[in-house]
């Protein structure tokens, strides 16, 4: 039942692109709910509909049919919705404008708030957010997006989340463009967000190993359907569905035989 403790609830949610013969069902009759302060991972290969679901959660795409509720109410006002639900995307370079300094853009993110804090408070909060993601504020003073490395930019997106403090974070493959070292630190910051701001996180990835590490619940998606769901231990260690087994099998693991030559 949708209630105050349910963040998202979907009933027979369907999203179709195209018309007639060429139409594709990106999301196919999904029914699920995500509870407050839960970390849910959506796992699946390319084209399984996980990013479309993320965009529906952010109200960037309207579902074709079915019911999608945020805290038991349908989403009406985008601005109001975005105060509470914020994304972190895969490619940070496409998220920032190259013509403005990073700091200006971080400050501009206050624009979504109902009441803007004073200028001094703004600066303070930006500084705090930068320190929260281990970046000395003077390091990015007057710098533009193209002057920073991929790992630093990904952390800037997380700094934005620390500034806005939304109730829900949609992380759409935040670690697929960075190397293993930076990936570990970004996961650390996600854990920190969850702990400090008691956030609900929807974590989208194609790597079930990552999902196993971060989440409370895992949804395995295939062709727009959720084919398996459960706790990480159930899904990753005792998989029942063939798609889950395939996903687990495809991760290169140092201890197992992965591919024979």
């Amino acid at each position, binding site marked *: 039942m949708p209630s105050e403790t349910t963040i998202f609830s979907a009933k027979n949610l369907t999203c179709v692109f195209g018309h007639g013969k060429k139409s594709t069902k990106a999301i196919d009759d999904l029914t699920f709910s995500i509870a407050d302060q839960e970390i849910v991972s959506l796992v699946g290969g390319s084209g399984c509909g996980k990013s479309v679901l993320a965009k529906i959660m952010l109200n960037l795409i309207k579902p074709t049919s079915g019911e999608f509720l945020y805290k038991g109410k349908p989403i009406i006002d985008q601005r109001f919705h975005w105060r509470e639900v914020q994304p972190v995307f895969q490619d940070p370079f496409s998220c920032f404008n190259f013509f403005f300094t990073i700091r200006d853009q971080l400050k501009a993110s206050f624009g979504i708030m109902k009441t803007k804090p004073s200028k001094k408070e703004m600066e303070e909060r930006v500084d705090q957010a930068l320190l929260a993601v281990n970046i000395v504020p003077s390091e990015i003073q007057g710098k533009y997006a193209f002057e920073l490395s991929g790992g630093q930019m990904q952390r800037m997106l997380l700094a934005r989340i620390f500034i806005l403090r939304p109730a829900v974070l949609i992380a759409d493959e935040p670690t697929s463009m960075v190397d*293993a*070292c930076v990936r570990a630190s970004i996961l650390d910051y996600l854990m920190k967000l969850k702990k400090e701001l008691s956030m609900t996180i929807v974590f989208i990835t194609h790597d079930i190993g990552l999902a*196993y*590490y971060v989440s409370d619940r895992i949804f395995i998606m295939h062709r727009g359907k959720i084919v398996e769901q459960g706790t990480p231990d159930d899904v990753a260690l005792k998989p029942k569905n063939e798609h889950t087994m395939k996903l687990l099998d495809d991760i290169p693991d140092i201890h197992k035989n992965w591919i024979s030559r």
Partner: protein
Amino acid sequence: MPIFEVDNLHLHYLTRFGAKIPAVAGVTFSMEKGEVLGIAGESGCGKSTLVNGCMGLFIPPLWPTSGNVRVDGESIMGRSPKDVRKNILGRKVAMIPQGAFNSLNPTRKIKDQAADMIVSHESNVDKKALYERLRQRFDLIGMETEKVLGAYPIQLTAGTRQRCVIGISTLLDPKMVIADEPTSALDVTTQKAVIRMIFDLLDKQIFSTMIFITHELPLLRHVANRIAVMYAGEFVELGTTDQVIFDPRHPYTKALMGAMLSAEPGQRQRKPVAIEGAPPNLAYPISGCRFAERCPQVRPECRVNKQEIRIVADRQVRCDYAE
């Protein structure tokens, strides 16, 4: 005789303010025929710069400082980019790039782009025989030939596109293939398909020697015979796959292995440990060990003494205190 030798290679970028940034400093290795060498390291550690150096392709601002690269005993250094493209790329050394979509022309069909590869390297090609040859090669490497050759890049999926690029790069039977993160833009299932194709090509003797560059150490465990770990333009550890993965000796390799995670029982409690700090800025000269600032076992001497390669437990390690 080694088929591919890199001898004390130093490369630098020349900025427009006249500063030299040594991106690759003193890399030495050699490869026998039939070997796969994996190179692992963080972003920005000089992996891709080393690739350009290994092809002998120097486009400003990248310049060679010193050192030599030999393919089959023949030096490929000191040539113009035009000469390199005509005589070395594709025949001696072929490269498989990371983003397949950026490497293909979106306005031309795959077969025309593949034909370009042959036309630009060989004289007097018969057009009819050319397409027949392409078809045979694509059949051999296990592609859906009819569907793929007549398609534009945008009509193919990311995995197929990457496999096309691999097919085109190896059309002229290169002696040596350099794969620069060929799978890091793909999901795990497609990654497996691409790796399977690379193994297939190795089995069919289309090419036999390969340098495979990635930042995923678990992937290298299955692909490479030997692994070199790179940090800030230097190799810090070079040994066989089992040595580097299961028994790392350099502190940096140990830290890299600590940052890995996988879906195994008991792993959920084990946190992946990120390496604190950032790699050094190479624009300023570094006196001591390059990893000293981030090393958990740092000693005062490390910041002063330059570390040299030495042999520890049958592999090369660039650390004076590794056991």
